């Protein structure tokens, strides 16, 4: 075997069967012929099947067999035409490039760029506040076209956005309809329209929209991480009480002794000595006792700042809550594609 390329391509073509699980006998016959490498037979049976009134899935399968068979016979134009028919019937169908020969894949790619279809439209399941968040809408346009996305439902219609482009495109619906109206609960349809010259194509996607109220925040009793500090602190023990009591006794006692009348003779001073002893004892006891708390200026300033910030934060929360009470939260649940509609080539 000098050149194994054609043989390998042939094996790849057959290994990647273009359909599976079809019930129509003609489609089965075409598939069987294709599997037996009877490409002419596969084309004949497939074309007969495409002229029948078959279900869409069988028609798509028949066109794929025809396209694969033409591609295997190197009939590029017929293969592209057959692929285009299959794409029109099932825009989301894609070739598994890892299992199909590059020759067939490239023909499929050429066919795809010659038709205008919208493929794989999807929407996120999400919850957002109208005007602040949004739901992502993604799809693929096979050819450069002007694309417009609209949303319609019970509460009205709104244009989401429009753009000229191709390939993977993404839009975001912020939940508003025309004139800023907010949707009511119900099923809404996202219509994606692509127009290129005389060709146009449209697909739709259904969404279940559930409006709800936006949660409000509670006012704060304290700032997280910023606890208030004690406004008084207990200073360390010191000698002051003892010193004061000693000084008091000394001053009063000294003055009394100094003022005594010499004419009256010196007394025993029992009273002065006794009270001075009691006084000094009280001073010692007071010195050993835990001192009185004193105001802490630093803590007071800190608490004032924390309270000011708490007030500001609560004012901001109140302002936000006022706004939130006017807002609507939407819950979006995609329900799948509704239909596809195209015209032109």
């Amino acid at each position, binding site marked *: 075997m000098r050149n194994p390329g054609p043989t390998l391509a042939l094996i790849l073509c057959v290994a990647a069967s273009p359909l599976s699980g079809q019930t129509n006998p003609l489609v089965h016959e075409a598939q069987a012929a294709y599997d037996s490498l009877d490409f002419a037979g596969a084309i004949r049976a497939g074309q007969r099947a495409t002229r029948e009134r078959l279900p869409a899935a069988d028609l798509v399968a028949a066109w794929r067999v025809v396209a694969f068979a033409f591609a295997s016979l190197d009939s590029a134009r017929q293969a592209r035409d057959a692929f285009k028919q299959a794409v029109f019937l099932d825009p989301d169908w894609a070739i598994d490039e890892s299992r199909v020969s590059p020759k067939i894949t490239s023909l499929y790619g050429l066919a795809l760029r010659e038709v205008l279809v919208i493929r794989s439209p999807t929407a996120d399941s999400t919850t957002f506040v109208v005007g602040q968040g949004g739901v992502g809408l993604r799809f693929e346009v096979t050819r450069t076209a002007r694309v417009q996305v609209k949303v319609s439902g019970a509460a009205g219609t709104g244009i989401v956005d429009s753009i000229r482009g191709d390939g993977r495109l993404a839009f975001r619906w912020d939940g508003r309809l025309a004139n800023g109206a907010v949707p009511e609960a119900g099923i809404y349809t996202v219509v994606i329209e692509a127009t290129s010259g005389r060709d146009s194509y449209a697909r739709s996607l259904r969404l279940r929209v559930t409006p709800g109220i936006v949660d409000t925040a509670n006012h704060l009793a304290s700032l997280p991480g910023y606890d208030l500090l004690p406004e008084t602190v207990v200073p360390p023990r010191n000698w002051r009480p003892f010193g004061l009591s000693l000084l*008091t006794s000394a001053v009063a006692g000294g003055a009394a002794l100094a003022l005594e009348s010499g004419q*009256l003779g010196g*007394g025993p001073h029992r009273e002065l000595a006794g*009270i001075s002893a*009691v006084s000094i004892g*009280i001073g010692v006891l007071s010195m050993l006792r835990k001192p009185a708390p004193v105001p802490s200026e630093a803590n007071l300033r800190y608490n004032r700042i924390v309270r000011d910030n708490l007030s500001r934060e609560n004012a901001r929360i109140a302002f936000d809550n006022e706004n939130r009470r006017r807002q609507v939260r939407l819950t979006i649940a995609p329900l799948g594609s509704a239909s596809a509609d195209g015209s032109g080539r």
Partner: protein
Amino acid sequence: MKTPALAVSMLLAVPAAAAGQQLRLAIMGAGSDYREQSASLAFDGTGGAGRVEIAAGRFTVAATGSRLSFVRTATAAVDAEPFVWKELDLTGRFRLVSIVSVEVGAMRRWIEPDRAAQAVRVAKVGLRADYPLAPGADAGLRAGYLTGATFSGGGAAKAGLALGFGLSYGAKRRGPRITADYDFLRINRETTIGNRIPVPIQSSTARVGLLLIL
């Protein structure tokens, strides 16, 4: 005389305390050294004393009453007669700044028998400092000028001086405390008949007891 004064004070005290003011009641044991004219008239006395104080804002009114029995000291003349002293001291105080107050008042001392010692009536004006030592412990120092003295035995006094200090100690700012205070009083009495002969009066009184702050 003392009983009606105390009753009036108590009646005044109840609404004062209820309005958030402070009422202080003290009952104390007292000991005193009393001297008159010379060392031959020296007496030791013991007895009891009571005090009522009502404080409202910067104002304080205090009444102190005491009853002491005096006997002569060992150095006194043998004919010095024992006597009973009853004293009532009424004082009004006004706090000027921080811990400093000005006080005015009057003191009256009765002696039984009246020949044994001099009964006295005197007015006083002075300054007082009250300061805290610790939570539940306070100290006070006072000094006063005595004037307008009259005596049961005649004579006159141009001036007199009163000194004193006191402390109290308890578990809390309000409630029961122990209290101790000391008063020194000297009046320069002189005879007014013939030559003016100095016959001074001097007393040192210590009181220790229980104070209740409401």
